[in-house]
């Protein structure tokens, strides 16, 4: 479904983001990418979101090279990829409801669908009570749930989660991972980056280990090995 082919990203001569990275992700897989800070995890996800272009190599999504997309196609492609970030990245002037509704509006969904689906996904992440709260009125865990709800509301093919538990306490971390697992069980591919040993060990799924922009391990039922 997703295929990285010899992808290299140089920020400058001395700063290497990714170096000759090749791997593929199957549909409905749940893969975790681990590594120290600066290992290239976030760079890898930015490439996948078409936020940055590789210096060399290609990234394919269902056999289409995503860096050859036109602007309009990038917009359409991003609606098929849900993104979750460590710093949540909610729209600060919109309520939980509006944040999720925005993703649906952007995808051109009609008002009836939005009115039906938003409360439903908020229920899925167990946040129905805070539907009209602004981000600054929510705790870290709650914000991340809104972000997840926003990422899944358009039923994307892939969820990209960049250290989603990095700012959360252990209980919230556990719950967020449970939600991601549930999403994966429902058939969505999940790509997760994390530092958290506990999360990786409890998942028992595929683990890619990165170091200095390179893939150093790729284990089918991996454990945290750094």
């Amino acid at each position: 479904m997703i295929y990285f082919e010899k992808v290299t990203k140089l920020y400058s001569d001395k700063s290497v983001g990714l170096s000759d990275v090749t791997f593929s992700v199957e549909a409905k897989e749940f893969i975790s990418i681990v590594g120290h800070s600066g290992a290239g995890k976030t760079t890898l996800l930015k490439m996948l979101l078409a936020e940055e272009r590789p210096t060399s190599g290609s990234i394919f999504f269902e056999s289409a090279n995503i860096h050859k997309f036109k602007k309009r196609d990038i917009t359409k492609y991003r609606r098929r990829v849900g993104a979750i970030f460590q710093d949540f990245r909610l729209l600060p002037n919109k309520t939980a409801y509006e944040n999720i509704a925005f993703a649906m509006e952007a995808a051109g969904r009609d008002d009836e669908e939005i009115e039906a689906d938003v409360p439903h996904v908020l229920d899925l992440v167990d946040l129905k009570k805070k539907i009209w709260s602004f981000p600054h009125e929510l705790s870290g865990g709650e914000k991340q749930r809104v972000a997840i709800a926003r990422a899944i509301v358009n039923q994307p093919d892939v969820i990209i989660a960049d250290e989603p538990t990095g700012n959360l306490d252990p209980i919230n971390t556990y719950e967020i991972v449970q939600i991601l697992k549930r999403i994966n069980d429902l058939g969505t591919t999940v790509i997760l980056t994390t530092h958290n040993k506990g999360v990786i060990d409890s998942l028992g799924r595929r683990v890619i280990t990165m170091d200095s922009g390179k893939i150093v391990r790729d284990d089918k039922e991996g454990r945290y090995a750094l």
Partner: protein
Amino acid sequence: MLITKAKRVIKAGFVNFWRNGFVSLASILVMTITLFVIGSVIFLGTIFNYTFSQIKEKVDISVYFVTSSNPQDIMAIKKNLEALPEVAKISYTSREEALADFKKKHENDEQTLQALQELNDNPLGAFLNIKAKEPSQYEGIANYLQSKDVLTKDGISIIDKVNYYQNKAAIDRFTKIIDGANKIGLGLIIVLVAFSIIITFNTIRLAIYVSREEISVMKLVGASNQYIRGPFVVSGIMYGFVSAMFTLILFYPITLYSTKATDNFLMGFNLFDYYIKNFGQLFLIIAGSGILIGAISSYWAVRRYLRI
């Protein structure tokens, strides 16, 4: 779908305007100053034009003819003068009319009237009063009057005197003042308006800079450029419209007060009257400028952050 999208964009623009209260207020304040400058330029321009045209009205030259001149010859000169492109208006005053005017002017002055009586003949000559289209053109007209074209058949000039030569210094100076005022005024207006527009543009840019993270999130969520930009442009239009309202309201007491304060030296020009009578036009210019500046600034400011 297009209508739904337009509705969503407009609604989001209004909501952002309201929820970003502090940023909106700052933008409106700066924009009000810009629109105030534009409005003041309109008012000052009108005052200058009115005052100058009033003064211009008062400038003319008179051509006095010798008492022995034939009215037909004078009419011929008048006709020639009227053919000149510089001449706006010529009025003819006959010897008799000149005498009647003189008597009327001095009706309380017994001595003068008595002296006049003692003369057998009317001592006053006929004269032409000439108004040029522009003050700078009087010299040309005066030169023409000195040329041979206005001589009678006998080769003797029937012109007694042209008062341009007495008033030359004053007319020249007045011409220079108008020219100078026009040039300086235009330069000043361009600089002033340009500066205020640049300041407004930068304020709106800062306001949108605050939202740059939001814009990138919207992009990553899959919103199209137009859908992201729309609400910002709507907010920009609202800044312009609200600022225009403030500016127009502000001009009410200002024109009212300055009309009272400047009554004496504006030659009867009523600024407040002008404000009331031309309110529609002022509204269109000021609100139009505000909306245009707001919309264009927002459109351009968002552009930078749409590149991911």
